[in-house]
């Protein structure tokens, strides 16, 4: 079943074409890898799916509906949640507050109720607290709950960012280079985490430079180069695709 579909997506930046007529199908429950050399347009495509950028042309369907007109935050409400390549945490928030923040779209108490601290706010806040602690425990950050997020190690900050995204109960999770800056063992843990998330039925799109990681977890991979899609298929197909090898892997390095 198709969860999201990109049709003819293009993006110009002041006359410079960053993406040209990209078609892509993201299957429900899959892990979709997105690779390509630097400047290939991976992050741009990512930002279009998440709603940070507007596409210049084409259409984007999510669960069958066009969502191109929706804002970033509205897409979060539909279940499209992202992380950032250069980790964007809230400097003044505690670890627990970050996860609570993830519940933002799932809670419903309005301003009036919050200001008066009515029953539904009270209930909702204790539900959020409980769920957040539960989630923290699951990702193994419960001992840091009251600490400032910025004092966490780099690997834990990554994990926290993913936990925050998970708290929003995504249907489609967009991971932007989650392995960047992590050491060997942290990458292993990350791999575990991605598998667990996948096991819960969450669809993932993964932009990653770490080829081994992408090849290992993705069941579908799209390769971009110079703003165009040059290949798509399973890890094995991509490995053996002559165009990919020429355009991309031919440099002799899998890393780019």
């Amino acid at each position: 079943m198709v969860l999201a579909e990109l049709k003819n997506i293009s993006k110009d930046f002041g006359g410079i074409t960053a993406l040209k007529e990209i078609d892509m199908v993201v299957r429900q429950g899959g892990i979709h890898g997105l690779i390509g050399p630097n400047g290939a347009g991976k992050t741009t495509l990512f930002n279009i799916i998440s709603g940070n950028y507007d596409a210049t042309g084409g259409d984007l369907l999510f669960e069958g509906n066009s969502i191109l007109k929706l804002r970033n935050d509205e897409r979060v409400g539909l279940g499209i949640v992202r992380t950032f390549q250069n980790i964007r945490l809230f400097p003044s928030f505690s670890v627990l507050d970050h996860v609570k923040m993830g519940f933002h779209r799932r809670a419903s108490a309005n301003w009036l109720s919050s200001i008066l601290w009515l029953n539904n706010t009270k209930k909702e806040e204790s539900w959020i607290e409980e769920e957040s602690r539960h989630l923290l425990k699951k990702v193994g950050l419960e001992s840091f709950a009251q600490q400032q997020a910025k004092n966490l190690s780099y690997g834990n900050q990554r994990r926290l960012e993913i936990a925050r995204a998970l708290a929003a109960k995504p249907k489609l999770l967009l991971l932007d280079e989650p392995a960047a800056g992590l050491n060997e063992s942290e990458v292993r843990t990350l791999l575990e985490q991605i598998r667990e998330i996948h096991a819960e039925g969450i669809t993932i799109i993964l932009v990653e430079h770490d080829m081994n990681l992408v090849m290992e977890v993705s069941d579908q991979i799209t390769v971009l180069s110079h703003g165009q899609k040059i290949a798509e298929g399973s890890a094995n197909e991509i490995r053996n695709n002559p165009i990919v090898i020429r355009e991309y892997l031919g440099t002799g390095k899998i890393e780019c």
Partner: protein
Amino acid sequence: MLTQQIINGLTLGSLYALLAVGFSLICGILNMITFSHGEIFMIGAFSGLYTIIALGGNLPLGLAAAVVVSAAAGILTERIAFRPFRNESPLSPALITIGLSISLQAGILLLFGADTKPFPYNVSAHKFILGNTVISGIEVFVIGISILLMIMLHLFIHYTRWGLALRATSQRIEAADIMGISTNRIIAIAFCTASLLAGIDGLLAGAYYSAFYPRMGVAISLKALAGATFGGIGSIQGAMAGALSLGVIESLAAGYISASYRDVIAFTILIFVLLIKPSGLLGQMREEKV
């Protein structure tokens, strides 16, 4: 009346402009706002005035005193209010400079009294009369000096090593740091330049209006900030053009619409410009990076 109002506006605008480029330099480089620039203008004016009086009318030395004192005050302001908060919220420097501005006014008031001091020389003796339009010598002088200083500033920024470093720093402080530019020194130079221009402006304005008083920098600095924003913070030409046009707009608004609504009109135009182009008419947009 139109030519006369434009000349009035240009004179006023020239006085705004020397302060406005200072705002543009400071705010452009640091992305922070200063509220004590008007007081640097004021102490420049006072030190110039009292030097002139003490030396029995030595104008060049008065100007030199204004330059030295205001530049020193500017550098000190940077050390106290800006350097400790680099790369932090612009709120702290804003608050400190508000405090500095209050205390500088109070200090000058204690030292020299509250009364308005005249400039001891008659500066508007020469007049050029063209039909219905009157231009006095001092107006030509004010506009001339202002343009001269702007040209010098332009040359400094575009054709010297320091100017290059200044521009680099205003593009990206961290990058400039990495490139081996001593950003501390560059920012100090920016403050120094901005402040000495403010000091000269103070003496010029004080002499032009023949009025020196502790709060002389308050209203004009707000207008200059508006002018700089109007033209584009971070751009020297923009700030200058903005200040000059603000002066002309004010003059025309007072002349053809209503003096009571002059400032309402000026500020409303500024807000509209900000809404249409938040970086000002000639300013560069800063891209939000995801």
